């Protein structure tokens, strides 16, 4: 119930060890972002990449082999 409420609100708690937290904070600072904004942008980028990858995998199944006889 609590989880469902949280998902609906879009809130997310991420737990990490102190060393990882320091690294993530530093990476965000270097980019002029808050840690949350950095994690959000990386997650969105990963989701978009997965979508592109799935499309490329589908295309790969449909491509006919070619002898590539002129390949260098």
């Amino acid at each position, binding site marked *: 119930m609590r989880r469902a409420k949280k998902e609906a609100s879009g809130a997310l708690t991420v737990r990490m060890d102190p060393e990882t937290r320091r690294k993530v904070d530093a990476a965000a600072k270097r980019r002029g972002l808050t840690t949350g904004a950095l994690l959000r942008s990386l997650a969105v980028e990963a989701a978009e*990449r997965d979508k*592109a990858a799935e*499309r*490329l995998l589908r*295309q*790969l199944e449909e491509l006919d082999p*070619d002898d590539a006889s*002129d*390949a*260098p």
Partner: protein
Amino acid sequence: MRPARVFDASVFIAAQRGSRSALDAVGSALRATPGSVVVPTIAVLEYRSAPRVPARWRAWFEGVVSTLGTVSLDVRAARLGARAARHAARAGRRLSPADAAVVGCGAVYGASVIVTADGDFDGIPGFTVERVAPAA
């Protein structure tokens, strides 16, 4: 964490020829964690140099490159690639400038695995080689 992999152009050419292991390697790369597989720009040059690559394969390759990401041949990569070429020459093997560039780019990226259909990358210090079949 799985070591980062650098893809040689020969893998894409082998995939185009219908090599199952090359197709599987590219498929795994597309499913891998972002940043764990990279294509050196020299591989883009090599693959795109063939005058008769079918348009659908070319478009697919460009999509793969843009999804996986590239690493460019800068001065540091050139130096590291040259070092690998000298090492190979001392061992009686020839590493072409393009292959040396793949090694240098991989080293700069922090990769430790070269995925290739060629035998030219064997015995390069700091790298293991994952070989795919060159054709179906």
